[in-house]
């Protein structure tokens, strides 16, 4: 069997159903086989979008996303998407064409050192130099991508390898002596954690993306309710614990809630589940949870004591470890009384809620999110771009279900949201998928309107159009003396642009029209691009200035 056909057969074994791919000279043999392969092949209009779409597919389903591009520029265009997936632990296998084996290193046409370029932005990568290695490599790639702490794996396939013949044998099992993730928590560490829990008067749980990846949201709910601890969810952890739960604190950190940050600062025990203590979460490290003992549950040992010194590390899978903790806690005779602590927190919640100044003259972005939440009953998959749109989406829509909030948290990739939403919608055709975009970030992959039109993908896009790069402008306003250097945008007419691609566009400028516009948008089966002209100088508050302690928040209407 030819290498290209082995590629197809291997992907069948991995139960792949969708491939996001862009053809080119070095992947012609594979695309020829894809022509009658049983996968849905989605052709985006830029390779970067293929990678983000595979990412959106993966985040919304938990399955491995697959993308493919040609050598050289095709591969380098994938890299932003690969890096995005790597930072947020998204399972993905990215295939790249490569020039003929004997030309590698010769500066051949459309050659790039793909394994070199992607080394530091992927979980692992391969250059397949012999067709006999192809099937085992694909098996390994999928295994590595989805196991342990998931991540993107790159497989570089020289064009001659795609044409070589060998027998197809797909390995059933895989065993790597150098890669053995730990899935269960060390019993001694579990005991230590439970002992700390049994003494804590002011516990706080911080839940990150690991909860989503491990599928641990039920265990987390059970655990939090058992020890009666409030739960703050990071951007990556949204939906891991229901936002509407009485123990929910919302998001911590730079644009988190005042009460989440206060709770962390005053807690005596911080239990982190699948969160890697990003600097946007911790703020000034010395002032982060100064009174707390810290329990850190993470499947990746390199996350432990990286940013924050940890007292009780537990390496393993969040679902397993929460289960172990719940079992061990059941043995306790008595749990500490946290009612005074929870009472204090509900007072903070009452005193410092997330809020904004309402307006009848200008549309407020927060109001759009609230309206969207109401009309979708919180059941839509929300995909964000990066910047103010992302923060408003995290503050004013509520997330009760895992895998319903997709956002580039680690890398902060503008241009992620729109193509990622395409991947999510392809994977979940019956779900409402809504992109919350800014006018700046939407233009970073605006060409994907063509993909929507081609495959009639019913993604809805809400552009929170403030005619500027809002988050950068906000920083310039607050910290750079309102010198709006390169942040004011002269935008195209988005309705006409969408129309030109064959996608419906609507423009909304008045607050009175907003509600109806959201309704119209949601009632459409096909894609709609809704250009909401919002208050231009609206800021995201509250806010912790960079490098400050997280309880030193500015803004926000208290």
């Amino acid at each position, binding site marked *: 069997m030819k290498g290209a056909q082995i590629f197809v057969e291997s992907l069948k074994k991995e139960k792949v159903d969708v491939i996001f791919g862009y053809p080119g000279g070095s992947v012609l043999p594979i695309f020829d086989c894809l022509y009658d392969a049983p996968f849905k092949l989605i052709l985006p209009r830029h390779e970067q979008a293929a990678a983000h779409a595979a990412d959106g597919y993966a985040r919304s389903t938990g399955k491995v996303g697959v993308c493919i591009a040609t050598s050289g520029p095709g591969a380098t265009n994938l890299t932003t998407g690969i890096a995005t997936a790597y930072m947020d632990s998204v399972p993905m296998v990215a295939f790249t064409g490569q020039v003929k084996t004997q030309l590698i290193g010769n500066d051949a046409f459309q050659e790039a050192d793909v394994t*070199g370029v992607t*080394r*530091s932005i992927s979980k692992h990568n391969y*250059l397949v130099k012999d067709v006999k290695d192809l099937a085992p490599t694909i098996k390994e790639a999928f295994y*590595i991508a989805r196991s342990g702490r998931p991540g993107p794996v790159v497989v570089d396939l020289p064009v001659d390898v795609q044409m070589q013949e060998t027998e197809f044998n797909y390995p059933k099992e895989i065993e*790597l002596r*150098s890669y053995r993730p730990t899935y269960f928590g060390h019993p001694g560490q579990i005991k230590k954690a439970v002992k700390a829990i049994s003494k804590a008067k002011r516990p706080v749980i911080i839940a990150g993306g690991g909860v989503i990846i491990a599928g641990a949201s039920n265990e987390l709910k059970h655990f939090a309710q058992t020890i009666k601890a409030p739960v703050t969810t990071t951007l990556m952890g949204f939906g891991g614990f229901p936002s509407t739960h009485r123990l929910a604190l919302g998001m911590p950190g730079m644009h988190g809630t005042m009460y989440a940050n206060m709770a962390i600062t005053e807690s005596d025990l911080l239990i982190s589940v699948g969160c890697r203590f990003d600097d946007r979460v911790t703020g000034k490290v010395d002032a982060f949870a100064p009174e707390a003992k810290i329990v850190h549950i993470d499947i990746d040992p*390199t996350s*432990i004591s990286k940013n924050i010194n940890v007292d009780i590390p537990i390496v393993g899978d969040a679902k397993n470890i929460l289960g172990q903790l719940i079992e061990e806690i059941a043995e306790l005779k008595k749990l500490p009384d946290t009612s005074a602590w929870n009472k204090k927190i509900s007072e903070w919640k009452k005193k410092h809620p997330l809020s904004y100044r309402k307006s009848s003259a200008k549309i407020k972005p927060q109001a759009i999110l609230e309206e969207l939440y109401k009309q979708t009953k919180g059941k839509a998959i929300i995909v964000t771009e990066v910047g103010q749109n992302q923060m408003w989406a995290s503050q004013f829509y509520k997330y009760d279900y895992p895998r319903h909030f997709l956002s580039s948290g680690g890398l902060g990739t503008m241009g992620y949201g729109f193509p990622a939403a395409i991947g999510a919608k392809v994977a979940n055709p019956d779900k409402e998928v809504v992109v919350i975009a800014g006018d700046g970030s939407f233009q970073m992959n605006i060409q994907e309107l063509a993909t929507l039109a081609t495959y009639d993908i019913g993604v809805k896009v809400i552009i929170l159009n403030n005619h500027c790069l809002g988050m950068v402008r906000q920083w310039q306003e607050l910290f750079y003396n309102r010198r709006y250097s390169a942040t004011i945008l002269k935008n195209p007419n988005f309705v006409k642009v969408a129309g030109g691609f064959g996608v419906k566009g609507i423009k909304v400028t008045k607050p009175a029209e907003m509600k109806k516009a959201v309704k119209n948008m949601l009632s459409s089966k096909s894609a709609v691009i809704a250009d909401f002209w919002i208050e231009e100088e609206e800021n995201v508050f509250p806010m912790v200035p960079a490098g400050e302690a997280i309880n030193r928040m500015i803004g926000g209407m208290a």
Partner: protein
Amino acid sequence: MKHTIQALVENKFGVLARVASLFSARGYNIESLAVGETQDSSISCMTIVVDAQDERILEQIKKQLHKLIDVITVVDFTRKEYLDRELLLVKVFKKEDNQKDIEHFLKKYPAKVIEDRKEYSILEVCEERHQAEEIVKELKRIGIKELVRTGRIAISK
């Protein structure tokens, strides 16, 4: 503080680049590096000597080293009992006035003459780190034409 780190890795192309880039990405210079096959030809042993400017960062690098898919084990010998050696090959000028010094040197240190020419001798020295440093100092005084040395290798006791 200097650390001697041993990593057993899969004997495959690309592994060295992965290991090296963990150090270089942080602006860490690898002081010496020795790579060779072990008794199992599918496993290579890398011995890395690095001067840690920040112990926390080094700790992180070691964890990330272990996280690399192709790395099997990582051991930091620094606070353990171990033996280390490096090999030096040195071309030493023969001049009228240094014959005595060379003879004296050969008596004092465990060096071997492996090539003897009219103008120069090639010496082979296999020693542990501190001794090797001392030997280099001594040889500089005598007059070195060329010096090459391997990276340090180490084994636990």
